[in-house]
């Protein structure tokens, strides 16, 4: 499989990255080179093989259902959450108007 300029434009749009036509033109051969190389994986017989889900066997834990058990990751830290926001407004994240 290979990509063309329309596909690269579509991927960039899905990835929310603005690209110019010149950038797309440069990316098409680069991405095709990489995709052609990874396609050798198709040679591998994977019948009966499960895709990996955990690299080291581990079981998912549940934490105790306690509010703010860890103060660092609990609530009540609005100031810390907003401290690095580029445009905080009235205690919220500010964004351009979404509703027309």
């Amino acid at each position: 499989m290979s990509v063309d300029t329309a596909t690269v434009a579509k991927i960039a749009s899905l990835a929310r990255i603005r690209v110019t036509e010149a950038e797309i033109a440069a990316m098409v051969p680069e991405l095709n080179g990489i995709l052609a190389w990874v396609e050798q994986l198709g040679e591998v017989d994977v019948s009966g093989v499960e895709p990996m889900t955990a690299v080291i066997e581990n079981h998912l834990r549940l934490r105790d259902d306690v509010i703010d058990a860890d103060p660092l990751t609990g609530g009540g830290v609005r100031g810390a959450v907003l401290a690095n926001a580029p445009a905080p407004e009235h205690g919220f994240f500010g964004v351009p108007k979404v509703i027309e």
Partner: protein
Amino acid sequence: MTDLTELGVAAIRDGVAKGDFTAVEVAEGFNANVAAAQAALNAFIVATPEKALEAARATDARRAKGEPLGKMGGVPIGMKDLFASKGVQTTAASHILEGFKPEYESTVSQKLWDAGAGMLGKLNLDQFAMGSSNETSYFGNVISPWRRNDGGNAPLAPGGSSGGSSAAVAARLAPAATGTDTGGSIRQPAAFTGIAGIKPTYGRCSRWGIVAFASSLDQAGPMARDVRDCAIMLEAMAGFDPKDATSLNLPVPEWEAGLSGDLKGKKVGIPREYRMDGMDADVAASWDRGIEWLKDAGAEVVDVSLPHTKYALPAYYIIAPAEASSNLARYDGVRYGLRDLPDGANLQEMYAATRADGFGAEVKRRILIGTYVLSAGFYDAYYTQAQKVRTLISQDFKNAFTQCDVILAPTAPTAAFGLGDMVSDPLSMYLNDVFAVPASLAGLPAMSVPAGLNREGLPLGLQIVGKAFDEQGVLNAGLAIEQRARFSAKPGRWW
């Protein structure tokens, strides 16, 4: 008096504890080296000399009161700028996070501070840890302190992505540094700069507070001048963390106390698929010497097969970009970091402009590949297939480890290359991680130790891969090599 910046972790810890010198003297020595080298090597994004001094003063005060100093008491270290540092700019070497000052400290760095270490500064790296030469940083290339012996003084790559870490330790700007390894980012830079570094078993070190690249692969580990120093620092970094869902709930072994270079009764596997056509002659010779060294240490050497080796890199370059495209979706110009809001732009246009401006070319390339392989219609052909191949690669190691205790291989196919030599061809850059990526995909502990110099006078590393949870076996085989390689070369101080 000895130059304190020539000392490693163990020597500093022990010397401070004994009162041969103070932690403040050590911190002042390294602070001076950091400042003197910054213009030439660009190893740090931010230097924090006051933090190093503050921790050193605390250590000296504890010693005066007769209190325990901790595993890293009095040792100043460099912190890869991928670990969140409370109140200190943390960028992942990206423009999109420029100016970001976390309100929290990563688990691993907090453990190091609790163990008595101090921070010399935040180390440069490849942007979001994506690269093998430290040429993708928004804050400029790191220059290796090493030069070829041809007198040409061509600037060389310190390896990547932990290139600031490797350059700083090799140049005596820090006795040790943190690294992270997703597909070789501790081991390859360690090999390029003549230092040691270990990536532990996936889950040993908490990922909480480390800027995420590929979460199923990312592991933190120490980079230092020798195996003992790595063992000490890994003990301080590792341990269960309830805040990381993949953290291993296991006690941290006493790796330093368990060190032994006697390999009697141990079997060392030599993977035949790693001996590739056209292999660099110096790298092949170094591998052969490593085999003889391990035999000399008492080990039996056996031939093993890892039949899916050639598929590891292509699988990695599907899995890692796929995870990266998902992880990096969080950089949107809303919650932290850069915002680019062109006049009259709507929310979607703001996202796209911010990410176009904030990410470098290699990061964009990987996000686009990841987005493509995860997109509807291609997911099974690329991503599911790669995860199946990953299962086979992991099984290859399990099979090999029925015949041997550790595996010995080169760390990288070449010594350090020149800056600029590989940037125009992403694929050839990716191939530099051919020996490192398989152990990453299998989540296994793996380390690089210095093995000698090539004909150009540049360091070469040997890699030991161990069974899951057997960092001790890896460290011990590394120690056996270190005791026989007696690597003492260091870069001349030209800066």
